[in-house]
């Protein structure tokens, strides 16, 4: 098995506002190996995006703060790095792809310039020919045809799918150890998404990058992630191999979520639905976060938060019912 590249230990991130402290991430732990794609799945406000931003230390200041935990990259706790050191890491060791390719690219610079900016900054190459070579190889990695001509294009001259690849090129240009992809395919059509995910897999095979894939779409998870963690209201409820999550999920939330997704391979008369809504992060219930909506809730669930228990190798659950 390949080595562990990134380890997140008991991460706590909160937003401090006039209304109070929003515990966006409340004790999250997971790891990712080289060449592996790890999925962070959950609905809106579950904390998956904030987790990604925390790893990059890109939280909106001064409201957002990492208040606890460790993030260990190749053995080093990056939360201990100075701002300057972190900036060197960002883009070169850890990189991020965001959801909207339209706003991720600067409309007034060419595609080549934007990739070059990353190359120059992190690889300290000044020779323009060398920089151009790097840019072309980054474009080629994401299978952009005719890269030597494309690098002179502006974003508006490219289609949506192509732009998303350019964003990928920028992120991969310095061959990072970890790539965090935050819902990169949500805005894409199904057939383009299929292309894009195939491309991701290809890039990963070539560069051995570890990918943390943040999404709400189980179809994407099934397609590209080897392991996945299900998040809810700032906590991870279940972590397992993808096939286990689909075939033998243990946490009631995971089970409910999987069942509520309509299936293309059969006709359902009615969908399983979970009552109610996710809790407000200001007013979290004292016990298990999912207790108010859980079909299998017990008394203890409402009082105490369940600990994370590894029920078999690689499969851990936070649930009082599962012991």
């Amino acid at each position, binding site marked *: 098995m390949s080595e562990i590249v990134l380890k997140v230990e008991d991460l706590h991130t909160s937003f401090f506002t006039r209304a109070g402290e929003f515990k966006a991430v409340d004790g999250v732990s997971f790891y990712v190996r080289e060449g592996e794609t790890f999925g962070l799945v959950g609905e809106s406000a579950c904390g998956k995006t904030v987790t990604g931003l925390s790893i990059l230390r890109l939280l909106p200041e001064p409201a957002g703060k990492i208040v606890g935990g460790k993030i260990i990259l190749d053995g080093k706790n990056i939360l201990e790095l100075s701002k300057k050191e972190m900036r060197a890491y960002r883009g070169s060791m850890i990189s991020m792809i965001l959801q909207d390719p339209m706003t991720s690219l600067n409309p007034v610079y060419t595609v080549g310039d934007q990739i070059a900016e990353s190359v120059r900054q992190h690889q300290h190459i000044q020779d323009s020919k060398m920089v151009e070579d790097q840019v072309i190889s980054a474009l080629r990695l994401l299978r952009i045809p005719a890269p030597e001509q494309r690098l002179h294009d502006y974003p508006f001259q490219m289609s949506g799918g192509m732009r998303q690849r350019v964003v990928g090129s920028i992120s991969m240009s310095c061959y990072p150890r970890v790539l965090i992809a935050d819902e990169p395919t949500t805005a894409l059509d199904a057939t383009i998404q299929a292309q894009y995910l195939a491309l991701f897999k290809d890039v990963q095979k070539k560069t051995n990058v570890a990918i943390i894939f943040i999404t709400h779409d189980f179809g994407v998870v099934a*397609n590209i992630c080897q392991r996945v963690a299900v998040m809810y209201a700032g906590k991870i409820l279940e972590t397992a191999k993808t096939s286990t999550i689909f075939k033998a999920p243990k946490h009631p939330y995971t089970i409910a979520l999987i069942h509520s997704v309509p299936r293309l391979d059969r*006709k359902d008369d009615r969908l399983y639905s979970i009552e109610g809504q996710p809790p407000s992060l200001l007013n979290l219930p004292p016990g298990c976060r999912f207790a108010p909506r859980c079909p299998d809730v017990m008394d203890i669930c409402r009082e105490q938060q369940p600990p994370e228990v590894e029920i078999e190798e690689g499969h851990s659950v936070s649930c009082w019912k599962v012991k």
Partner: protein
Amino acid sequence: MADILLEGRNLKKYYPVTKGLLQRTIGWVRAVDDISFTIERGKTLSLVGESGAGKTTAAKQILLLEKLTSGDIFFEGKNVYKFSKAELKTEYRPRVQSVQQNPWSSMNPRMRVRDIIAEPLVVNTKQTKEQIRSRVAELLENVGLAPNQADYYPHEFSGGQRQRIAVARALALNPSLVVLDEPVSALDVSIRAQIMNLLKDLQGQYNLSYLVIAHNLATVRFMSHSVAIMYLGQIVEYGDAEEVFKHPLHPYTRALMSASMLTLPEDESEEAQPIILSGEMPSPLNPPPGCRFHTRCTEAQDICSKEIPGEVEIGKRHWVKCHQSSLR
């Protein structure tokens, strides 16, 4: 004989592209290019396709938000474009309502929920305040909300609840047809199921017809009785939903289904190899000659780039537009 509520015949909607000082028309965006479909009473037809396929444009024409370039819409057998203004107001508009995709922008943020739901009644009927008030309460209960929530503003609700309010508003005038444009794609996964179940229940309760615009095939399969797959302004395959999903024939339909299927990596066998299309949907300004899909089709033959395929009927209630010899 099927009870047809609405029929669209040879609908075309082209948008002019102009250039220059004198605004000369140099081309046309063929957003909807000759589509025909029928919606039966009490049943759901879904228009499926990716962005640029023309499905939202088609919906806009049915809602009379724009005027067709050519083609006819028949409502209960009568040609809608021959209705007088008064007839439209009393015969068509109250009977054809809509629920939009974005629950955050489909409601006036300055209006309370009770006014939002009441507006169709205020504009179209002469009911008293009391009558309207009780109707609003009734509608709220129908969609699973409490009547006392009528006093709140939209921003005080979650996305799922707002969609329920949108549905309540659409039902206010007892319509026969509700056009739903991506009704759940902006919602969280666990809320989608709630809303889809609700829509199905209401359909049964009030014998509603739905025209659903969607890009998610699984959603479509759950909701639809008939389905029409659109690509670049045209319908490439349509018919009874179960028929089409069980036996997809058009290469585009197959690719779409493959892209939407939930397959685990270990499950990938020879048959389950994903179909990955190359390139992207061309611009509707300059559609490819012949069959519009031929540039990306894995089964394309010579004839596909030259001739537009005719309609082939496959069994009961299933039609495809494709040159594949296996279909003849």
